[in-house]
């Protein structure tokens, strides 16, 4: 079964916590990865790769630049994940 929106957001929060040290409760839909969550362009690649593994989704490099906020990423993952 595909992950729910809630599962995706909490999964992203755990990933951002691991990579940038931001408390999970601060990782909210409207937060910008670079401006609010201390995720620079290099760390963003780590977030993407971790999200790909966790949610069984492919996020091509060309799409990464469109993922500005946690909400953008959650929406992208929900749309593109492979249903199990």
């Amino acid at each position: 079964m595909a992950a729910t929106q809630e599962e995706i957001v909490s999964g992203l929060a755990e990933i951002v916590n691991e990579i940038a040290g931001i408390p999970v409760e601060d990782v909210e839909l409207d937060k910008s990865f670079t401006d609010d969550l201390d995720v620079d362009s290099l760390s963003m690649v780590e977030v993407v790769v971790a999200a790909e593994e966790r949610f069984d989704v492919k996020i091509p490099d060309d799409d990464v630049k469109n993922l500005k906020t946690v909400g953008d990423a959650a929406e992208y993952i929900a749309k593109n994940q492979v249903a199990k």
Partner: protein
Amino acid sequence: MDSTNRIVVVTGIGATTPLGGDSASTWEGMLAGRSGVKLLDDERFADLPVKIAARAAVDPSEVLPRPLARKLDRSAQFALIAAREAWADAGYTAPAGEDEKIEPARLGAVIASGIGGVTTLLDQYDVLKEKGSRRVSPHTVPMLMPNGPSANVGLEVNAQAGVHAMVSACASGAEAIGYAVEMIRNGRADVVIAGGTEAAIHPLPVAAFANMMAMSKNNEEPEKASRPYDKGRDGFVLGEGAGVVVLESAEFAARRGARVYCEVLGQGLSADSHHIAQPEPGGRGIAAAMRHLLETTDLKPDQVAHLNAHATSTPLGDIAEIKALRQVLGDDLDHVAVSATKSMTGHLLGGAGGIETVATVLALYHRLAPPTINVDELDEEVDADIVRGEPRPLPQGTIAAINNSFGFGGHNVVLAFRTV
């Protein structure tokens, strides 16, 4: 402001070494004559001829937050820890600019490493082979580049006068400090944070050094393995960690009322041009570096009371250095208390010049030469006064000390310090 030939002083020190997680515990370990060498229980070393090393006493993971640590090679982690200590020890409370005592444009950073991010390179190659290219860390390049530690320390303190990384194998740390002195002397900076770091305890470098016949294979008694000047020495023991100092123009330090440990007189430099890895057995290149030091500074041989030798515990290298000292200092060598602190810390390669500078500065400041351990039977070719077993008090009055570092490639760097 006189911007040339300015006097340079040491105002801060920091270290993380096999003897302790800071400069105070490292110094305490040295005075107690403690060995930081241990058996490597990691199974990756099980089939190697060398199974010993001097691991850092405090793992950087205990000190740095994980999100920061995962973006830094272990060598940069050590450098950052030592740099933070040195920066605070010098009395700075924030990065340059934020701490108004120093402008970013007048602050430099010169942190060297002999090998750079070798463990990052090798670990990420394992990731590539085992998990595929997508999983290779995007931080790999900034982590493995040998200027990484210097760049990260520069970012930490907001150094904008220049950030540099000298690379000359085991002379790198000393060359970094020498370069930092020049930056201040020629007016490019008022303050430079400088030193050396290394983190190369991985099966590949260990196997490679072992195959050069450069390392001690005394796996049975790790604490006895590093034994400079002893008849039974059979090579160096690899160590890891960092040593960093804050250098300032004397005028700048005085104006802000900084505590001054000692003066840095300058450096002597030369190259052997003899062999890529073997020392020139007569000490010709080392003697040339010592003479360069005497010609370019006002160091007087009769002032030299202490010398922190390069002495890595190799049969050839330890003697070549002693021969050079006798050639240049003559009878004045008789009143020099010679210490080989690698007997306790192991050989930190590019980090050696950093932590041995910290040790030399503290020896002058406390007027106490640290001991050389494991000299059970002094090699009769060692024609110098080695401080054995116990620390030895140094004389009162104005005294100077020398710190020697030599590297594969034939690089010779000699630094000199004097009490203020």
